């Protein structure tokens, strides 16, 4: 190992670490991505200077083709299609690891140290599973394959069988590295297992699956690093493997599911209203999301309702508002004439919290403003923002003037559940695309937001 190359790789690793660190926080994410790009560039250039590399033409061609395709996809893809793109890219990464393992195997044709052959088998297996698994995930998200979970009877049994077979073949190959058929069998098993692994999982759970596969592709890269005794591959692979694992855990938590439940769960779709159509799916957003939206906003309108009184969240709410105002955000309260359970209920509450009267606007005073507002933060209100009062003649609310919170760019709603308010009418605003539902007691939710905005 040439000393310069080693040190350059070290520098690259450090940049990768810093990049990853920055990627995890909203404020620095973009810089993080750029750091990681730089790191990658250094790693590539350094590798090209290695004297193991004899033939550049093919490499250059490969790089150009790959870059072109990658850039075109990245540029053309619709923002809504990003998840499947990530899946696709991820599959390619895994596939590349597997290919490298195969190439190296071919290069040394059987003359392999035990640790190298172990690494090869691992790299091949994980890389391939990642490859096909990701492709299936891509297909499901892109609508090429039926998104619903595909379950058949002996599935779990088959999985176990195949996995056992892999273990046996793996041992055989490791004992006798020259057994190339064994390696091909492993390849085949991995191809199938990847498909079987993802098929039974429903579209809604795909993000978690992709994250898991992402972690795997990191591990595959690390295994490739073991094959090549290349530290940067090991470090980056391990980084991605570990952080991908953590990310998967975080995502599971956000969905209130466990990973085991997602992978082996009887039915793989999350849907709060099972009896309703697909549109009525609700994502559990968190206070972090709300705080990101609030922080990025220029104009915010707060709509308090009866739930604010029940939660006694007025003090917390006002603290949040003061914080936002101090951050230069334009914040107002919109008070619906019948919010709460008695005339002036909201006024009593907000007066307790010493909210300046100048921040309070009544329906006429503010209803035109929602459409210019970045975030409408609804705290324990329901009927007073129910759009069915405008449109649905059957609704008991029909004819009651409502606050046009639905016209805001983003609507953040804090309440404990999807249950209706005083009038007992369901609220379609909860299912609107630009709505973030934050479930929980309003006071707790607001307090969490305060905490998050402080840091």
């Amino acid at each position: 190992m040439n000393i310069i190359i080693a040190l350059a790789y070290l520098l690259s690793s450090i940049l990768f670490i810093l990049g990853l660190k920055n990627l995890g926080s909203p404020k620095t994410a973009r810089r993080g991505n750029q750091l990681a790009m730089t790191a990658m560039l250094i790693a590539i250039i350094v590798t090209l200077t290695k004297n193991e590399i004899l033939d550049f033409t093919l490499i250059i061609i490969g790089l150009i083709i790959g870059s072109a395709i990658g850039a075109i996809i990245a540029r053309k893809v619709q923002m809504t299609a990003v998840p499947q793109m990530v899946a696709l890219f991820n599959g390619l990464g895994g596939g590349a690891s597997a290919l490298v393992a195969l190439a190296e195997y071919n290069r040394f044709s059987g003359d392999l140290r035990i640790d190298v052959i172990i690494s090869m088998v691992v790299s091949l297996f994980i890389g391939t599973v990642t490859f096909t698994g990701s492709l299936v995930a891509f297909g499901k998200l892109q609508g090429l394959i039926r998104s619903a979970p595909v379950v058949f009877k002996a599935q779990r049994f088959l999985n176990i069988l195949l996995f056992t077979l892999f273990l046996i073949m793996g041992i055989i190959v490791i004992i006798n590295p020259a057994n190339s058929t064994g390696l091909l069998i492993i390849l085949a098993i991995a191809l199938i297992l990847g498909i079987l692994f993802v098929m039974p999982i429903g579209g809604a759970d795909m993000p978690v699956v992709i994250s898991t596969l992402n972690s795997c592709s990191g591990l595959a890269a690390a295994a490739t690093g073991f094959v090549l005794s290349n530290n940067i591959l090991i470090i980056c692979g391990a980084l991605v493997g570990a952080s991908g694992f953590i990310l998967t855990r975080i995502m599971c938590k956000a969905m209130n599911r466990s990973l085991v439940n997602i992978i082996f769960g009887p039915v793989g779709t999350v849907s709060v209203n099972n009896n309703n159509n697909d549109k009525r799916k609700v994502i559990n957003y968190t206070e972090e999301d709300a705080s990101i939206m609030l922080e990025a906003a220029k104009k915010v309108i707060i709509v308090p309702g009866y739930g604010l009184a029940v939660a006694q969240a007025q003090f917390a709410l006002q603290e949040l508002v003061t914080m936002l105002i101090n951050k230069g955000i334009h914040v107002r309260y919109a008070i619906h004439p019948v919010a709460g359970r008695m005339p002036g209920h909201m006024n009593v509450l907000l007066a307790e919290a010493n909210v300046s009267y100048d921040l309070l606007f009544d329906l006429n005073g503010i209803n035109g403003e929602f459409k210019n507002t970045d975030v409408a933060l609804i705290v324990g209100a329901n009927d007073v923002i129910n759009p069915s009062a405008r449109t649905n003649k059957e609704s008991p609310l029909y004819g009651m003037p409502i606050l046009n919170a639905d016209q805001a760019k983003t609507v953040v709603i804090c309440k404990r559940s999807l249950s209706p308010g005083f009038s007992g009418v369901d609220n379609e605003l909860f299912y609107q695309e630009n709505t973030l539902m934050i479930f929980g007691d309003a006071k707790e939710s607001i307090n969490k937001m305060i905490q998050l905005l402080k840091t």
Partner: protein
Amino acid sequence: MKIGIPKEIYEGEKRVAIVPKMVTQLINDGHEVFIETGAGDKSYFVDAKYERANAVIVKDKQLLYSEIDVIFKIQPPQREEFEMMKDGTTYIGFLSSALTAEFFKLMNERYITSFAMEFIPRISRTQSMDALSSMASIAGYRAVLTAAQYLGKFFPLLMTAAGTIPPAKVLVVGAGVAGLQAIATARRLGARVEAFDTRPAVKEQVESLGAQFIEMELVADAETTTGYAKEMTEEFMKKEREIIGDRTAQNHVVITTAQLFGKKAPILITEEMVKKMQEGSVIIDLAAEQGGNCEITEPGKNICKHGVTICGLLNLPSTLPIDASSMYSRNITQFFRHLYSTEDRKLDFEDKITKSSCVTHNGEIVNDYVIKAIRKGANT
């Protein structure tokens, strides 16, 4: 249409049915507004303000009545007012306390179309016309101020160099609109507040205002379909009085608001219970109009008995004339707009709100509820 606002002649009435701000709106809607001179004086809306809003000030009451199509009033018409009304006029105002045989006779003789504000159904879209709610809010607020005025104690807790003054304790019986407002106001002033009601839904509402709810084995269906409280059995009432009796002796102020729609108010506080109260305590009986929740309440009077002051105040909203007029005026305007919301400004008796609130029309009683009540009265 030509809308007229005569001066209220009911004794002690300080409100006016329309305030200048609403005059402007009605005129913008394409109506004409006539107002009797001095109608707003007692609520500090002087003639000049109406003039600025382009209302026509009419000096003579009779002249006013003869000019107009629609009368906006608060208190039900008295005999002398009937006499001035033109045949076929529309009348809007509170009516429920005046529904006597004589009233119907006079109304129908003159083919007056009358609407009772009390009969507007309490549904989501009528909340802006709901004068019962807006006036009850005022009553609840004033009840607490009056209690604070009569009580020889601070409402809030004060820990001072001259000793610690414990907070006043306030009991609110009946946590409807007025009761809730009373709770909120008393809490604002720093009192310890507890409340009781027969409807179980109220517990959460009371607690959302920071007051204690007094638990009692409640009857499951204490609420009618329209959200009002049902009349209770005598057995239940006995139990309720026991529980309230325990609490009245502990509290310095008792505010009662228990009412049953269209019935005499239930007696919740007996003279026995008053005797057991602390000297200097105050009872504000908001149900005085319906006879009172306290046995010894004398409607319209403040009496002091057994060391306790018992206020049987009537027409509390009128003691806050400025805002009471503003609110009522908005309610009646919204209601009027709804009634004549069709293109051709004809009443639509298919409409639920119009139908429920109309009492007499074209010489007949048209209100189901009233008809039922009359039949029932005739039977007994």
